[in-house]
């Protein structure tokens, strides 16, 4: 009997039902995601004349954004801030996530589901809500943060962190870390519990300590997952907007110290109090963000994924 796949090989054209199955998703996705993205990339090479017509401008927008004395400080400032924002996530969020996942993956631990549920809770809230909650917590008026510091005898350290140029960005990074620790925790937890018990038991029988078992056996096995957590954090951080917009406003104050590429994009595209919005420059900022995110993703796919060994379990 000829089976269906052999039959299909005989007709070279794409069968009609395949087209029907693919069409709705492809049309919506192409129209509302790919086409606008391409349109934005295209617009970054154009400029709008005073008559409102579009004119090809070559790389002029990019040159302006990267070197003009009004634009460049804003772009490079946001760029630098964004990297710092990402660095705090990598140094704080992922290690805490790893620690919590390692503890939670312990067989004998009771109350696992309870802890998981609570620690993951902030992750399901909106940036807007999280931003406002922390604004209240850190407000000198309400004094919650000061009370807590006094409780651990560090009361003198309290400052209105969100309002100071030197600490606002770091504070926002920590707020974002507080919200998203659940993601690496869950991903790493899932990877850790997928490791077969026999592997771990064999190591213990051979006399390995818990410390060695974790770093020599478990850690290499979850390294690919750590890579996924990293790239997710990277992409999320480089198009972050809501948290800064909610807590610091569209000008990302004080004195642009919390400006990220996302807020710069919004300001450029829509304008602010005195400055009119500029779609083509907005598209230019978006194109730069696109290039940054794309290079991160490509680095992950072609450098990290090739180097890191994935073990079939």
């Amino acid at each position, binding site marked *: 009997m000829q089976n269906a796949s052999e039959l299909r090989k005989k007709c070279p054209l794409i069968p009609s*039902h395949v087209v029907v199955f693919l069409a*709705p998703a492809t049309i919506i996705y192409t129209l*509302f995601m790919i086409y606008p993205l391409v349109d934005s990339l295209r617009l970054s090479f154009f400029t709008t004349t005073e008559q409102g017509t579009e004119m090809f401008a070559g790389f002029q927008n990019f040159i302006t954004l990267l070197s003009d004395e009004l634009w460049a400080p804003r772009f490079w400032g946001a760029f630098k801030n964004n990297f710092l924002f990402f660095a705090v996530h990598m140094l704080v969020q992922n290690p805490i996530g790893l620690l919590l996942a390692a*503890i939670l993956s312990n067989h004998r631990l009771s109350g696992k589901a309870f802890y998981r549920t609570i620690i993951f809770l902030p992750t399901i*809230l909106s940036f807007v809500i999280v931003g406002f909650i922390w604004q209240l917590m850190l407000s000198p008026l309400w004094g919650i943060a000061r009370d807590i510091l006094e409780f651990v005898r560090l009361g003198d350290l309290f400052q209105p962190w969100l309002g100071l140029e030197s600490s606002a960005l770091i504070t926002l990074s920590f707020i974002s870390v507080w919200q998203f620790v659940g993601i690496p925790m869950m991903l790493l937890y899932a990877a850790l519990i997928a490791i077969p018990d026999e592997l771990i038991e064999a190591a213990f029988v051979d006399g390995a300590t818990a410390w060695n078992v974790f770093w020599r056996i478990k850690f290499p096995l979850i390294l690919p997952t750590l890579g996924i957590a990293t790239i997710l954090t990277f992409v999320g951080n480089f198009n972050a907007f809501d948290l800064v917009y909610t807590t610091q406003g569209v000008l990302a104050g004080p004195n642009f110290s919390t400006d990220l590429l996302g807020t710069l994009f919004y300001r450029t595209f829509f304008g602010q109090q005195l400055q009119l919005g500029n*779609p083509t420059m907005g598209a230019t900022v978006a194109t730069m963000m*696109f290039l940054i995110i794309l290079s991160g993703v490509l680095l992950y796919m072609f450098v990290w994924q090739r180097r890191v060994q994935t073990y079939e379990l």
Partner: protein
Amino acid sequence: MFTWFKTSRFWYRFGGTTPHFVLILYGLIALFPIVLVVINSLKGRRAIFKAPYAFPNSETFSMIGYNTVVERTNFPLYFANSLIVTLISLLLILFMGAMAAYALSEYKFPGNMFMGLYLALGIMIPIRLGTVGILRLIVSLGLVNTLTALILVYTAMGLPLAIFILQQFMRQVPKELKDAGRVDGASEYRIFWLILPMVRPAVATIAVFTMIPIWNDLWFPLILAPGGKTMTVILGAQQFLGQFVTDWNAVLSSLTLAMLPVLMLYIFFSKQLIRGLTAGAVK
């Protein structure tokens, strides 16, 4: 010093109380701000500042914040808008995503690889980067300030990951089942309908990854549908909170109201939610 750390009793006690201590400490850090906002939203202004850590009692209990929110805003409408947008988007994502995933995982046709990669692009590239183009498109379609605009954009946003996840599940459906259908003369569409219920476990995973970002989004409501009639909960809360910064009762109450539906859903479905998340991660 380091060898001491590696071999010290700390690690032996990893099965004892230390893990609970760490987890409780972090659990408190995660929960404390949320609880504090909720309990203070039920107190009068004086009590909020005098005794922020106390639960409301008969003396301090007050709904004044909620009254302000109900009088000044249209929260029920915002809820309805958010609910409509989130649910319709989710349904479209699931249905269209399942169809596309079925085509990609079931049939060999020229361009299969290409279509798979094309549809997967959106997993890593954030849709926000196309905002300039999206706004132009929505303006030219005359859909500014409509929920339709949000639904279309969110559907496009959610499809890539949904297709990716559904494909994994579709591949696990035994081939004999589909071929048996074909032998009986069922059409390809009929076979799709028959196996659709078998990928139900994927729904939880997809719901986690698509519903939460859609419900919580500020960017697209702010840009595509900022009007009063189409305002979503998050945009409504953001604007209201911005106006009433000094009215602590109103701020705390509106934060609580905006959190409430997500918190309730989370409490009821956290098991499925977390299972969905970990299942997605293993894949």
